[in-house]
């Protein structure tokens, strides 16, 4: 497959993970207590998505989305999804317990994006993707393709991964160290958000920064965050 040669500008960027000193050059990165999201109580996945999006876009009504809701798309990328909620549901079944109705919608990735869309008035396309290999690149290329559509002005790309639980760890071990799924973030929940637009003479393209290897496939998005925040420096882990 060929790819679009579309220079992309980064107009908003945020990373959330308790990364300590390693995150000092990454915009927004700091230990955070996540603000709870009504109705999403079981897992950090959904609050993490909501928090990183807000950190990237600013408060609802701010300059980045105001008047552009119809021209804004969302692409969410996650290799494993909300493993906390989905595995809690499965474990409850195994234990012979009845499901909570909250698990009904919490485990569906589009639910939290519906919450975000309502808060920010975003009415453009919403895609959620997963892959074992090159997930960050695939999500960025999907965003590029959306930006090729003149009716869209910007795409919010969100990458999110929870720390691997027992099932994910087992799968990763089973597939082996060389399998691309081995490139999951190490040990911590993590999320990255980037608001992308087409580059213009007044809005220069941001070249990809060096990936942060500690954050697995998310490292490529972290690198782009860093490059956007520090265009004249290159940061590695």
């Amino acid at each position, binding site marked *: *497959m060929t790819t679009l040669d579309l220079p992309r500008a980064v107009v908003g960027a945020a990373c959330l993970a308790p990364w300590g000193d390693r995150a000092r050059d990454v915009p927004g990165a700091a230990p955070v207590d996540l603000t709870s999201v009504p109705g999403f109580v079981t897992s950090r996945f959904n609050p993490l998505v909501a928090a990183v999006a807000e950190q990237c876009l600013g408060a609802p009504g701010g300059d980045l989305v105001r008047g552009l809701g119809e021209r804004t798309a969302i692409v969410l990328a996650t*290799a494993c*999804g909300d493993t906390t909620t989905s595995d809690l549901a*499965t474990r409850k079944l195994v234990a012979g317990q009845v499901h909570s*109705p909250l698990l*009904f919608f919490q485990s569906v990735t589009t639910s939290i994006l519906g919450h975000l869309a309502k808060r920010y008035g975003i009415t*453009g396309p919403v*895609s959620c993707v997963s892959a074992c*290999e090159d997930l960050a690149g695939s999500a960025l290329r999907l965003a590029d393709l959306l930006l090729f559509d003149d009716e869209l002005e910007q795409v919010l790309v969100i990458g999110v991964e929870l720390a691997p639980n027992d099932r994910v760890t087992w799968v990763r071990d089973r597939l082996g160290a060389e399998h691309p799924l081995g490139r999951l973030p190490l040990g911590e929940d993590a999320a990255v958000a980037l608001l992308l637009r087409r580059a213009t003479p007044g809005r220069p393209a941001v070249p990809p920064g060096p990936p942060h290897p500690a954050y697995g496939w998310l490292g490529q998005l972290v690198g782009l965050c860093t490059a956007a925040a520090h265009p004249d420096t290159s940061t590695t882990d």
Partner: protein
Amino acid sequence: MSREVVITGYGVLTAFGFGPEALLDNVFTGRPGFAPVTRFDSTPYHAAHAATYGGDGPEVPGVPVEPGYTPTQAEVLHACAAEALRMSGTDAAGAPVLLGTNGDHSAARSFWTDHARGRAPGDPRTVDSLPGRLPESLGAAFGLGTPRLAFVNACVASTNAIGHGAELVRRGLADVVVCGGAYLVTEDVFAKFDSGKALSRSGAVRPFAADRDGLLHGDGAAVLVLESAERARARGAEPLAEVAGWGMSSDAHHVIKPHPKGEGLVRAARAALRGAGVDVERLGYVNAHGTGTPLNDVAETAGLRRILGAHAPAVPISSTKGSTGHMLEATGAVEAVITLLALREGLLPPTTGLRVPDPECDLDYLPDVGRRAPITHALSLNAAFGGVNAALVLKRV
């Protein structure tokens, strides 16, 4: 660059079995596929029915038909892909693989059962509980290319996969794409929907009916081969239909409820029609999302009135979920195949189970009986939690 995108092959599975004949003999004749679930014990739940493939109807190549055996998503996707590639007459070498799937959760169940019993997890299928594994394994088995993406946006997932695949071909970024989706009924998902009181307790799905009482799940999988019309013509392949347009949108309304006036559905459909360059007057059929839930069907009707405008009373519309059940991530791909068959056969499938219309759902919903109609263009609609909407326009070739 903007190229014509055509479908040159497909493989499809529903509860009625494998292939188009299973659809034509059942979905197009208004037969419901629901029965009490035997795949797991349904006694803890309010609902008891689903439309599962149990070996009746055309068999799925390569999938054992044995009492108690439940096929896996990987098995049915491989069977559908093999048939799609055979029908297409191409090996699709290097083609991107785009599938609507949230992973195979029967495997996750197996893992946590072992875990709870203090046993070392031993079911190798557990790897397929991660969504990305399914396009990866399909790509590896058939020598396909990259990206190998799973779309995980719930009930619009495989519509999104088809639309994205069409866009790759239309823009000249790929000559051929393999796309589709799969969902097989599992207790995990059944239990979630049951706890949310979304499932029909009567054992029937009656879209747009006054007595509708919810949705039921159904097994489904479909894989389609999309390619540029130019490539298809050059190799002498028969195009089956054109993917003329597609669109997506968000309601910006609620985490689970659809917009009551179908706001997002209207935007998605208009984007698809605009992309196809088609006026609503040329639409001969709409395959509606039509879940049979109280909120969806009224909201969708309101949206369809706005999409179709003055033409609304004249356009035949049906939801085929009264036959197939709701196939979640697979629903868009299977309904795209149903829509393709409607175009090619000149036969519109009915809304199975619709006998007492809801006064608020007053469009031409083809109650219980299909209709012969030569049509040139059709629209297929899907919607998901979070108010995400997707639309495809298919054109007869």
